[in-house]
């Protein structure tokens, strides 16, 4: 039985079907929500996402790609609604020019030594449009075409945001590593 069947059964009151669907996808939805609006709100987003899905009985237009992308798409809508200001999600095209170059070997050594908390903090500090590209395509390893459908943009835009997100992330990590070196001195 595939995810779409599980979804239809859950909507008809099949509790084991919901349980199976939930265990399959809750972690990715929670993961996305935790990065996009903070861990404390992530539980609420997951609950609201599944409630929306369960109550959309009779709909024939969803999901179009994968159920996972469909669920994260709903979570994304809820996150944006919660933020209240979609302008935060607008992409700043100038950020790439602000990225300084760094010697690859030195950077690689230092990046490998960064703590998980520092890396997570750097991802969370990215602008939302780049952050979600990193979360979906790098951390969740989502296919670019599925991510593009989810984000309602061309695949090229996903690649571009991912590239810029990585560039910003490298800058942030390099900066935090510089601060760390200064503290040690």
């Amino acid at each position, binding site marked *: 039985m595939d995810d779409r069947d599980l979804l239809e059964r*859950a*909507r*008809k*009151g*099949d*509790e084991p079907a*919901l*349980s199976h669907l*939930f265990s399959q996808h*809750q*972690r990715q*939805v*929670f*993961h996305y929500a*935790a990065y996009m609006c903070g*861990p404390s709100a*992530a*539980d609420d987003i*997951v*609950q609201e996402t*599944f*409630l929306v899905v*369960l109550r959309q*009985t009779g709909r024939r237009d969803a999901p179009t790609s994968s159920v996972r992308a469909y669920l994260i798409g709903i979570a994304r809508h809820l996150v944006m609604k919660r933020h209240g200001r979609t302008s935060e999600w607008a992409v700043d095209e100038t950020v790439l020019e602000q*990225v*300084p*170059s*760094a*010697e*690859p070997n030195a*950077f*690689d*050594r*230092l*990046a*490998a030594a*960064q703590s*998980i908390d520092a*890396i*997570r903090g750097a*991802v969370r500090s990215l602008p939302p449009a780049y952050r979600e590209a*990193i979360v979906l395509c*790098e*951390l*969740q*390893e989502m296919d670019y075409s599925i991510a593009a459908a989810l984000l309602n943009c061309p695949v090229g835009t996903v690649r571009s945001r991912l*590239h810029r997100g*990585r*560039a910003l*992330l*490298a*800058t942030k*990590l*390099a900066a935090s590593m510089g601060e760390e070196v200064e503290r040690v001195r």
Partner: protein
Amino acid sequence: MSDPVRHDGLTQALRRLAEADRMMTTSPAIEARLRAEVRAMGGRSKTWNGGTLLALAAAVTICVSVPALWWRTHGQSGSTDAPHATTVAREATTEFFPLFYGSVPSSSGHIVRMEVPRAALAQFGLASAHDVDRTTGTVIADVLVGDDGLARAVRFVRPIFQE
């Protein structure tokens, strides 16, 4: 010129983060809440026939009546063992008030008797003065719990004492 975007170090850092993030998960209460919602949806979508409704009503009645009868019987026999103490002659109860999961269907259930803070009365629009145990500040409540462990309804009990 170097390209920080293609650094292996960054890729490795993100891989480590993805690995650590596998521990992230929703709290168990969320699944419980969703399961209750699905049960409710299943209940709403079913067409109950007369026989099923009658059986359900009978089951609920038995679950409500038997424990209450047992409690009364034992309460009265206990009172005869202590002739000089103040004893419970009978009790007055309110109607059952539906709780949050009150609309979730359940095939069976049972009543759990407990003491709750007097503030609980006010939440259901009841006055508290004559129902409160003055030594503990609590009132007695019967909670109707479904077979899934979710509380469906509550009623408050006022013991009527005699010397």
